[in-house]
């Protein structure tokens, strides 16, 4: 494994990029000049600008905010705009594939419809209890509930956790770490009025009980969130609800 050596200007790295569409595809090799601080997304962009204008991939912000650039990099899901080539290179090469657990559209672009549909299915929408006419509710940032919500709130919808999750692979109905993590923030939001339907959603077929608690999501989330912990919280809520006869 060579690490820092490849970041020298003038060096080349081999990039095997998956090319194809829903009907199938294969890896194509590209030789890329590397520079210091080059990200994987920079390298993909270089291929598209210089070698293969037809290469499809997705990105927007390039600074780790929009969540659109995630791909499988050497077998692991990562946000490519914040992943340095030097950090992930193995045997002077990088293998890029579209995100796991999602249908491919073309090359490195996946169809995220299912992923987002599950956010709605988990009732990941804030249901207000007040209107603009009401005074703003005061919520202590120190309250236990607000702290639980804050710990899980900084999600950029990148689907990295979803691609890392074995339960998603096994149970196509499973809502997945991101949608459940979002549900957990709302379960802890005292201003929210969607708790009943959310409880139903997270305990139905494909709900929080499908999670194996092996933390694949947490170990890959680029924002260092811990969806597995959020889901553990949801499981507690679900179990309490069973005993109260609410589900």
């Amino acid at each position, binding site marked *: 494994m060579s690490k820092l050596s490849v970041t020298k200007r003038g060096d080349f790295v081999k990039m095997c990029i998956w090319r194809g569409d829903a009907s199938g595809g294969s890896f194509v090799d590209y030789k890329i000049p590397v520079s210091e601080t080059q990200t994987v997304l920079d390298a993909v962009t270089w291929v598209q600008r210089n070698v293969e204008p037809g290469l499809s991939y997705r990105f927007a912000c390039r600074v780790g905010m929009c969540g659109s650039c995630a791909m499988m990099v050497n077998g692991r899901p990562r946000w490519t705009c914040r992943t340095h080539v030097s950090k992930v290179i193995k045997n002077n090469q990088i293998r890029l594939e579209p995100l796991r657990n999602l249908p491919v559209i073309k090359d490195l672009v996946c169809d995220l419809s299912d992923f987002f549909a599950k956010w709605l299915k988990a009732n990941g929408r804030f249901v207000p209890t007040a209107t603009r006419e009401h005074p703003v509710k005061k919520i202590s940032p120190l309250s236990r509930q607000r702290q639980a919500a804050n710990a899980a709130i900084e999600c950029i919808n990148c689907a990295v956790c979803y691609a890392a999750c074995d339960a998603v692979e*096994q*149970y196509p109905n499973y809502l997945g770490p991101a949608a459940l993590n979002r549900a957990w923030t709302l379960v802890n939001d005292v201003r929210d009025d969607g708790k009943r339907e959310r409880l139903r959603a997270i*305990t139905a*077929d*494909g709900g929080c*009980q499908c999670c194996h608690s092996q933390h694949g999501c947490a170990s890959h989330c680029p924002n260092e969130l811990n969806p597995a912990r959020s889901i553990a919280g949801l*499981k507690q809520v*679900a179990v309490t609800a*069973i005993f109260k006869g609410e589900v």
Partner: protein
Amino acid sequence: MPGLRLYLAQRISAMVMTPLVLTHLGVMIYAIRGGLGTTEILSRTQGSLLWGSLYGLFVITVSIHAAIGLRVIAYEWFKLSGLLLNLFAILVGLGLLALGGQAVYTVVLA
């Protein structure tokens, strides 16, 4: 696909099983290190309500816990589903219950 109630049943059976497994291990170590033979062990367990209910409970929780766990594995690895999957889990549960029940019967009642 595990439902919430199966999930709960598996957690509760695990909770009940934990002290029973520890007790069982403790008893095993005690019996063997103390050099107890079959007759001595049986003389203590025969007709004992305590051992009977302890091991009876153990067998019931193991049957529930293992059946649900194997159901998950059968679904994920062998792609069983629907009626077949539930049938498989029920058979595993009943099989374990029968085997364990027979053992408890032999040690405590026969």
